[in-house]
């Protein structure tokens, strides 16, 4: 690829205002007429497109050399991202000509088409004098088919950048078929013209035989290659999955195990870490979707809110909370208040009743009623003996529920654990 050239060719035009850094040659996907070679070259060299096109046209007339050069460029140079992105467009906008061209593309294209037709007529005229006219049309047919198919590959590549709709895809398929048909037709006509039509049957049989032979010979190899390819792909996917699992295990489990080793003497801390880790891993393994890491987001349903509160209390106080949720509903203002009360109840249960084993949290949505129960098996207490100035239960739980139109019941027997029941009607 002629990458080193631009400096010498570009600055000859005084109108190139800015020095571009090293530019790589791409064919332009945007504003192109055939393969985008001319446009790409023009952008690369900092010349107006029309110049490049004229040069190609001139070469074209020199016994079709331009076609050859153009074809080589087309094959070798990769298609670049077109004028939709900023890069190639900015290249064009540096030259005043190019800018004008971009604004009025119709005129230029019209001119180019005219020039192409002109060239074509000359070309055909040239060939005409060569002798047998009959070869021209098949050649043209074949050429058109080839061009169609080649542009097809360009489009396939471009489809990676921009989402291509189904209709576009159908169009592409149609184009491919049309291209193949054109080439086939051209070849047939070629044969007919050459006068070998009489042996068409024989030739076809021979061709089929050859193709079959090639298929037989190369078939196993091709199958093997596709198999290898797909195998390699699955291996890669598997490796990626393994890497992801390894990363997760490293992020969570390994770190926790290290922490546990360091805090081996502190039973409460070890238990807390293990519980938190168990919960996270469980989320990650059994949750249908999600990574279990998006717990930071604000919950918007009741079940999530209960689980999140319980998880936080569990982490903070090192007491296991067993959460059971039946049904689910979106959170509204009243339920948010209920959740706050429930959280307070969980904190109390973990603080004062945690020695008796796991705290049971139960939430149920039944119709319009939402019921939450928090139960511990701790020592319990006599609710009436709580001094008037202690506001935890009275204000945070009972008061809050009543303010929002719900009810809270507290049942506690000394020695028999404590249970807080919260009931709230949903607002909608």
């Amino acid at each position, binding site marked *: 690829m002629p990458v080193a050239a631009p400096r010498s060719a570009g600055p000859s035009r005084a109108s190139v205002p800015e020095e571009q850094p090293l530019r790589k040659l791409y064919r332009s996907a945007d504003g192109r007429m055939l393969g985008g070679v001319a446009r790409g070259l023009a952008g690369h060299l900092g010349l107006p497109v029309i110049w490049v096109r004229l040069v190609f046209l001139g070469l074209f007339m020199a016994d079709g050399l331009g076609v050859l050069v153009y074809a080589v460029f087309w094959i070798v140079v990769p298609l670049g991202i077109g004028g939709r992105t900023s890069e190639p467009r900015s290249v064009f906008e540096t030259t005043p000509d190019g800018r004008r061209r971009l604004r009025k593309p119709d005129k230029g294209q019209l001119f180019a088409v005219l020039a192409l037709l002109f060239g074509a007529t000359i070309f055909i005229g040239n060939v005409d004098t060569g002798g047998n006219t009959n070869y021209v049309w098949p050649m043209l047919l074949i050429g058109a088919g080839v061009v169609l198919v080649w542009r097809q590959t360009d489009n396939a590549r471009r489809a990676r950048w921009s989402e291509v709709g189904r209709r576009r895809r159908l169009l592409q398929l149609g184009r491919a078929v049309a291209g193949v048909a054109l080439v086939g037709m051209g070849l047939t006509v070629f044969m007919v013209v050459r006068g070998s039509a009489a042996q068409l049957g024989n030739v076809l049989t021979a061709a089929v035989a050859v193709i079959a032979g090639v298929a037989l010979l190369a078939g196993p190899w091709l199958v093997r290659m596709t198999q290898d390819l797909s195998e390699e792909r699955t291996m890669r996917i598997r490796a990626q999955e393994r890497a992801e699992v390894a990363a997760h295990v490293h992020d969570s489990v390994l770190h926790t195990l290290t922490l546990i080793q360091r805090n081996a003497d502190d039973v409460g801390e070890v238990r807390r870490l293990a519980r938190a880790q168990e919960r996270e891993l469980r989320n990650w*393994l059994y949750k249908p979707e999600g990574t279990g890491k998006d717990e930071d987001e604000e919950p918007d349903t009741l079940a999530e809110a209960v689980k999140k509160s319980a998880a936080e209390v569990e982490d903070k106080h090192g007491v296991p909370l067993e959460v*059971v949720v039946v049904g689910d509903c979106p959170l509204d203002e009243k339920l948010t208040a209920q959740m706050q009360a429930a959280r307070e109840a969980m904190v109390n249960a973990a603080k004062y009743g945690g020695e008796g084993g796991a705290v049971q949290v*139960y939430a*149920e949505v039944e119709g319009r009623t939402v019921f939450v129960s928090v*139960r511990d098996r701790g020592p319990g207490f006599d609710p009436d003996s709580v001094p008037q100035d202690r506001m935890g239960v009275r204000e945070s739980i009972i008061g809050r529920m009543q303010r929002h139109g719900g009810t809270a019941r507290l049942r506690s027997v000394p020695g028999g654990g404590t249970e807080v029941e919260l009931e709230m009607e949903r607002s909608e």
Partner: protein
Amino acid sequence: MTEAAAETTERRVRVVLVDDHRMFRTGVQAEIGQTDRTGVEVVGEAADVDQAVTVITATRPEVVLLDVHLPGGGGVEVLRRCATLMAAAENPVRFLALSVSDAAEDVIGVIRGGARGYVTKTITGTDLVDSIFRVQEGDAVFSPRLAGFVLDAFASTDAPPVDEDLDRLTQREREVLRLIARGYAYKEIAKQLFISVKTVESHVSAVLRKLQLSNRHELTRWATARRLV
């Protein structure tokens, strides 16, 4: 513990442990396998489905502690292949699922396959022994979480089908399940509802039967909604 030990030493129950995790088997064995103290006698162990079926058929235990995730088809497969043993008129083999997973599909799956109970592996040794005895006596063992799943499965928000009374939970059964889900022990439930412990147990067994028999829309719908099937 001493009281419980005194209570249990008279009874004996033969148990087979099915779990593909050798270390876990060893741990459980150490915790419950001291027959003199707990009354549990571990008569066999298995690490996969084929082995499990062989061992269970050979030893005819009273209770099988069954892991849900097993090589060779999982706990459900073991249950399927041991169906005749479960249904036997004399000395039926009973299954208690013991799993690290408390995912709904695992729980509901083995219960519907015929397991008499479901406990998670975080359970304490004492509770596990207790559960084994309860299963051996023919009762169902419901953890709070399992009760929650069952309630969820039967809770129909849409208009209920009329002719499927059999599959609905009665008010009492629902109450009992709800209390289990709230962490009450059977004894506490009995006290709360002013019924006997035996009645509680029969309610729970009825729920279990309904869960196993029911193959109605509710479960399907429930599972579909959670993308379990």
